[in-house]
């Protein structure tokens, strides 16, 4: 294991972004990914270990009118206990409800989940479906600068994102979905939370009479990154739902995501899951 030469625990965002400027820094939040990854040798420590848990600007869940700002340090437990998340971002709340164990939920942060960029990261699937964006902070020339990246552009591959080494994720911003928007999150695994999802689905829409509007669909664990399924969304948008539409949507989704084979499931099994479970979640949301 490569050595850590310096350990720092900054107490302001300015300070944290300043330390990150050198770029040779490992950021520590809850540690639930970092510890196993460094122990197993899948990840090498940078010379500087920076614990961001004492940076107050990274905490808190706030309704800012049109968006909900969720600080990078907000834990899965805090999301589950938030009435705002439960009422307005229920798709995200459901994913948190399927997340690991109580002990992990108490430590794991949303920022860690996003930055770890696992194709199966549970919060990423609803965040994608909810049109969330990442807020990144850097201090390139002495002044703090923020940039916002839609999550649809944030993930580049397993464990890879467009966050540059000198950037810190400060928050995710989730636009408040329209009134009447409902959703369902589905995760397939054998041990309820602790399993890594073989597939996960986040589907949301609003009922307008018999029609579906504001249709959003994202999948986890079917591709190198979590993905939106825009063609399937378009096929359902503004349409009444019947058995033929449902079947057609499932068919388009399978073309669109082209699931992979790995240790957890074969591509055949994933295709079956997507086909059947997508139909189920759409039907449930339609009935809400």
């Amino acid at each position, binding site marked *: *294991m490569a050595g*850590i030469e310096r*350990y720092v625990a900054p107490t302001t965002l300015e300070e944290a972004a300043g330390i990150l400027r050198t770029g040779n820094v490992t950021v520590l939040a809850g*540690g639930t990914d970092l510890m196993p990854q460094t122990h197993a040798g899948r990840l090498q420590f940078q010379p500087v270990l920076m614990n961001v848990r004492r940076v107050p600007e990274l905490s808190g869940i706030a309704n800012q009118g049109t968006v909900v700002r969720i600080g990078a340090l907000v834990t899965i437990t805090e999301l589950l206990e938030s009435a705002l998340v439960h009422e307005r971002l229920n798709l995200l709340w459901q994913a948190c409800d399927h997340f690991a164990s109580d002990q*992990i939920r108490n430590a794991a942060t949303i920022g860690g989940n996003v930055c770890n960029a696992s194709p199966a990261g549970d919060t990423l699937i609803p965040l994608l479906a909810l049109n969330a964006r990442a807020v990144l902070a850097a201090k390139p020339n002495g002044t703090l600068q923020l940039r916002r990246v839609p999550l649809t552009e944030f993930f580049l591959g397993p464990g890879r994102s467009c966050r540059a080494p000198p950037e810190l994720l400060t928050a995710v911003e989730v636009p408040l979905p329209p009134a009447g928007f409902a959703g369902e999150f589905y995760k397939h695994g054998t041990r309820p*939370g*602790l399993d890594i999802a073989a597939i996960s689905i986040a589907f949301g829409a609003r009922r307008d009479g018999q029609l579906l509007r504001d249709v959003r669909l994202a999948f986890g664990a079917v591709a190198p990154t979590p993905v939106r399924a825009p063609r399937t969304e378009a096929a359902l948008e503004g349409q009444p739902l019947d058995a033929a539409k449902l079947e057609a949507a499932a068919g388009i989704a399978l073309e669109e995501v082209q699931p992979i084979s790995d240790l957890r499931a074969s591509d055949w099994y994933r295709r079956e899951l997507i086909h059947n479970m997508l139909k189920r979640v759409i039907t449930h949301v339609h009935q809400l």
Partner: protein
Amino acid sequence: MSINCDIAFTLNGVKREITVPAAMTALEMLRERLGLTGTKYGCGEGECGACTILVDGATVNSCLMFAVDCDGRDLVTVEGVVTRPAGERLRDAFVAHGAVQCGFCTPGLVVQASHLIVRDHAGNEAAIRRGIEGNLCRCTGYRKIIEAIAAAADAATQGAEHGSR
């Protein structure tokens, strides 16, 4: 090797100061440096819950926590939990219900169960089952553990009515 850091925290109500390597786990610090071997090393990966401790009032897997992150925080291990009323009730209930076989999972379960009881998350069997999802037991089949936690939670509710928690 990684650099050593000086940290200070409260452990079972007592202030402690210690020097630890930056990459060390809180679990290793507790067991190897501070001699508190009640907290167990099972998997080292967050799967089994044998290493569960309380940090600032919430349970975490100490095998996933960096020891340096303990700086300034309030830690309670099973040794501290059993000196509190909720912990005492749990210990007695685990004994009375025969919820211990080899005992390896017991400290982690007692710490996790005490957290569930204090947070009022042990009101029924479903809540208890969900609350201990992160604790593996290879011996008992969980039934007696769940009964013991339910009994301790009942006793805690009655105790609370008499003002001791």
